[in-house]
């Protein structure tokens, strides 16, 4: 009997145990996250076949929904929890060697809790519970961004914290209004009653909740914190923030919008915002000299594309959006991990400092190149089928507006290609100083990089590996009636 609650309870218990554990051995803490996350990965994979048949609904405390908090593990939930556990596991292996300074046991505690919060957000079926797990995710990322204790890290953590805290307050007001309207907090129950009140009175809570969640999802006017936070955090954390945290925020936006509000009125606006986000992100990335800031802006661009795809709300487009999300997670995590050791070895964040590193750090550089090509959307990497699917979905809508917008998105991709090729060129085709300091990254860092590379190529060649899950995830997001029925019976 495998119960999805264990996906949250076991990592939490292990994280709570770390302080006591580190009284005995300071070094033991760094092995806790890999253990907990491999447990999560195995459990999610065990659950996967059962979930694809029918969603698993788990009540907590033994009462029936809507009178208790319940977990709804549908295809979307399990897709995200597999991604979180998998990427989290690889990055935690990387961090075993990468994080050496300061109170490392605190880093590992916070890291594990961040991923637990993310898992909770994607699994829960209760809107206030979503808020609580969202706070776990956000607060641990504030602390982790500031972890290095350097000027830049503290400053960006402060900005991130203030914007995030205002966002959570707005979210909480929105939840309060929803509770006042419907007298319940269960998402399926709210969704069932949403048509019984006038659209105007639901509009305000919807805007508040979307704004609150949008801060974490980095949708355009709300993403001022992102480039600072992602570029000044330790690289392993940048990988998680770019690869997991934004995606989870996006999941929450989409879940609230599609399932609770069933809103079609705001989708067009969201598609515009998505394209705007994409263009701004790509253009800012183009003008950066700092490599981590460039990657952070490129994340904004990618999120814009995903938002655009999801906002088209056809079954093709949502599948494409989720596919793009998966490929962004894998590629961006790989990029940040590779860049992490390049920066560590060269001691500089400038792109020009990376000259000739393709010869001294061959595997890491290969990882960077593959991640970059995948993000740009070259075959045979995962970025290609996902972008292709989005373009095809936009053309299939046969609406001239979407066709114009996807044209703009392709323009963004061209810009993206330009700046990534520039970096790859610096890596391989410029002669640099042959400094003995610039040796290859250690094995613990190379394992995750190589696994990511293999996975990116494998999914790129055989997209069928995951399209089955993606299709059922897309249909779960679009059919809110099925969701309501599966929870409330």
């Amino acid at each position: 009997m495998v119960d999805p609650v264990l996906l949250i309870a076991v990592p939490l218990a292990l994280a709570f145990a770390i302080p006591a554990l580190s009284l005995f051995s300071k070094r033991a803490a760094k092995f806790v996250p890999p253990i907990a996350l491999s447990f999560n990965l195995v459990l999610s994979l065990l659950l996967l076949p059962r979930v694809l048949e029918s969603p698993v609904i788990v009540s907590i405390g033994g009462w029936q929904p809507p009178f208790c908090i319940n977990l709804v593990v549908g295809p979307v939930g399990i897709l995200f929890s597999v991604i979180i556990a998998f990427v989290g596991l690889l990055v935690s292996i990387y961090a075993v060697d990468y994080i050496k300074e300061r109170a490392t046991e605190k880093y590992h505690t916070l890291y594990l809790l961040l991923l637990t919060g993310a898992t909770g957000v994607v699994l829960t079926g209760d809107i206030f519970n979503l808020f609580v797990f969202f706070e776990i995710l956000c607060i641990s990322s504030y602390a982790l961004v500031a972890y290095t204790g350097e000027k830049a890290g503290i400053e960006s953590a402060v900005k991130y914290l203030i914007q995030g805290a205002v966002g959570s307050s707005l979210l909480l007001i929105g939840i309060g209004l929803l509770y006042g309207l419907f007298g319940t907090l269960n998402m399926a129950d709210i969704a069932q009653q949403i048509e019984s009140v006038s659209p105007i009175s639901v509009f305000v809570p919807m805007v508040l909740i979307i704004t609150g969640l949008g801060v974490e999802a980095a949708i355009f006017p709300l993403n001022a914190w992102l480039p600072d936070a992602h570029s000044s955090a330790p690289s392993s954390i940048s990988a998680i923030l770019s690869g997991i945290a934004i995606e989870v925020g996006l999941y929450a936006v989409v879940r609230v919008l599609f399932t609770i509000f069933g809103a079609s009125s705001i989708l067009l606006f969201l598609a515009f915002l998505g394209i705007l986000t994409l263009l701004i992100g790509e253009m800012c990335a183009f003008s950066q000299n700092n490599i981590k800031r460039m990657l952070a802006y490129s994340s904004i661009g990618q999120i814009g594309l995903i938002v655009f795809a999801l906002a088209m709300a056809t079954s093709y487009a949502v599948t494409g959006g989720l596919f793009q999300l998966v490929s962004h997670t894998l590629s961006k995590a790989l990029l940040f991990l590779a860049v992490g050791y390049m920066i560590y070895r060269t001691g500089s964040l400038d792109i020009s400092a990376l000259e000739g590193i393709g010869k001294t750090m061959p595997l890491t550089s290969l990882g960077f190149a593959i991640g970059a090509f995948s993000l740009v959307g070259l075959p045979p990497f995962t970025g290609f089928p996902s972008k292709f699917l989005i373009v095809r979905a936009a053309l299939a809508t046969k609406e001239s507006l979407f066709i114009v917008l996807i044209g703009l998105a392709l323009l963004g991709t061209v810009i993206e290609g330009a700046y990534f090729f520039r970096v790859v060129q610096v890596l391989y085709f410029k002669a640099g100083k042959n400094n003995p300091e610039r040796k290859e990254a250690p094995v613990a860092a190379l394992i995750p990089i190589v696994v990511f590379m293999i996975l990116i190529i494998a999914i790129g060649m055989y997209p069928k590996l995951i399209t089955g899950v993606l299709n059922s995830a897309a249909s779960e997001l679009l059919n809110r009636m099925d969701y309501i029925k599966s929870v409330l019976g």
Partner: protein
Amino acid sequence: MRKTISIILLSIVAVGMSLSLAKVPFGQPKTKVGQRYIDKGVEETGAVNIVTSVVVSYRGFDTLGEVTVLFIAATGLGAVLKIGKREAAAIEPASFVLRTGCRVLFPLILVFGSYIFIHGHLTPGGGFQGGAIVASAFVLIYLGCRERRISETASTTLESLGGLVFVVAGLIGLAVGGYFLLNFVPKGQPYSLLSAGIIPVIYIAIGFKVGSELAGIIDNLIEEST
């Protein structure tokens, strides 16, 4: 400039909220879930304080998350602030009357805090309130006597234990009855101290955890880093 923009922004927020408030009239029952908790709460959980039964039992998962948030804050604060060696600030000692008063009050406040969290299922209050009161005793002893009374080992152990008791109690429920956080202990007679199954156990664990974490936060903040 900045002021004008923010005032315009705020007036939009204000108009929007007042529009939506028209549908949320003050003082009228709107609840569907809450009414059921009131009707069946005592019978189902054994706790006469319905807020406690909602916090620990019906919405216990939220509370687990909330405890985690506090844990994150304490850990993160330690990670952010701890640089170099610990060194208490040199401040002149407080007056004799103040010192003696604080020393007398300190155990009394501790007892009061424990009372609050042990009786969480019977009277107003519970783990969070009691924990905060316990932590405020440590603030008092710092302000009054300029001394720190927190052993780091003890507070770390309490922190870990409190969290573990909560999760393990939930997991036992899962093993026994198939539901996480199931109240698997007999409910007992309402209105008596030993009632409501695992609710007091969890609330005591929360009390210790919250108390040690809040005290730890204060302790971390006051110590001067060099």
